[in-house]
């Protein structure tokens, strides 16, 4: 008989995953981004359910690999990753901490009703340059006050 394996608390595992950065926007963890849907012990196997942000986001596969690697590094040998599409991810899944970190990083966080404020000078008078930016999740605006172009996280 094998020795009983330790099965760390889900809250602890969640805290570990809060250290795993998103590959495109490393200031956000995969927890901040809201793509880890569920963590569950099934016997001695940890089941991790994740959801993609955008259908074509090339980071999705890297994220899955990074999560698995991080859990292995913490000593969890038996991890099963599944992907779910439903309900679809929206920017509402991004945590408050994530929103703050985005702003500090220079990317305006997503807002539902109003246009994003300039992350540099805080002005709310900005002009849309393009709804498509350097990654699927970002668009481009320009601040009308400080004239700096900036990226914003698209509402989705």
């Amino acid at each position: 008989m094998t020795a009983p394996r330790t099965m760390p608390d889900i809250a602890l595992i969640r805290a570990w995953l809060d250290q795993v950065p998103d590959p495109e926007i490393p200031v956000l963890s995969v927890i901040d981004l809201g793509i880890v849907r569920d963590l569950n012990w099934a016997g001695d196997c940890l089941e991790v359910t994740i959801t993609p942000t955008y259908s074509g986001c090339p980071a999705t596969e890297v994220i899955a690999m990074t999560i698995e690697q991080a859990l292995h590094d913490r000593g969890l040998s038996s991890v099963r990753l599944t992907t779910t599409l439903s309900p679809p991810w929206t920017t509402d899944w991004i945590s408050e901490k994530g929103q703050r970190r985005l702003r500090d990083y220079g990317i305006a966080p997503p807002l539902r009703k109003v246009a994003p404020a300039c992350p540099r000078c805080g002005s709310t008078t900005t002009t849309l340059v393009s709804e498509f930016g350097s990654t699927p999740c970002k668009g481009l605006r320009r601040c009308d006050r400080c004239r700096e172009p900036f990226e914003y996280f698209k509402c989705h």
Partner: protein
Amino acid sequence: MPSSTCEAGAPDGVVELALRLGDNALILGQRLGEWAGHGPVLEEDIALTNVALDLLGQARLWLALAGRREGQGRDEDDLAYFRDQAAFRNCLLVEQPNGDYADTTLRQFFFDTWHVALLNALARSRDAEVAAVADKARAEAAYHVRRSAGWVVRLGDGTAESRARMVAALARLWPFTGELFEEDEADRTLAAAGIAPLPGSLRAGWQAEVERVFAEATLEIPASCWMHSGGRRGVHTEHMGYLLAEMQSLARAHPGATW
């Protein structure tokens, strides 16, 4: 292989539906990818490739679903790279060449407007897997149509040159729009099962939206004319073979290649 419409495995027609949706997204994504590095301005270059990437992601989801339901062990790569022209189910509109920016813009606008309406309906599908992919894709398509509609207005109500090009593109592309609303036995089976809307049921809404944008763009819908047909049965235009040759050559030269 002759391409009769309903020979696919699942009796509910989900394989056929997923192939049609996946092939539309894949082929249009491939076309838009041809613009990479050639866009008229940097922002548009980035936008076109972003839309291409969304469509490619959607194609993966649909083709993976088709492969699972078909149950013959084919994954999305097998379906994308190892089917021949007659097995592709995309509509003829999406395989039309990029042409000038008026052609690319108008092709995209016709498709996006239709795509949004279709995905919104499919998000309520009685098939949970179909609904999940559509629900995911429709948020992306909403962004696509805002961009393409904006450019239709900008070019149509722009300079004499841009307007003339839009009028010419309209004459070329309009005859490919009828196919979007065609119905066959597979469509009727899917509609009866509550899995997909009847294509014809989307026509009035689509036309109203096109008319609304055209009014702003000072463009007019052409008088009714003969419409091309065949893509959904695997009968494609002469442009399709060249597109597939480029898209499939690497996977066929090096089967199973990864990086």
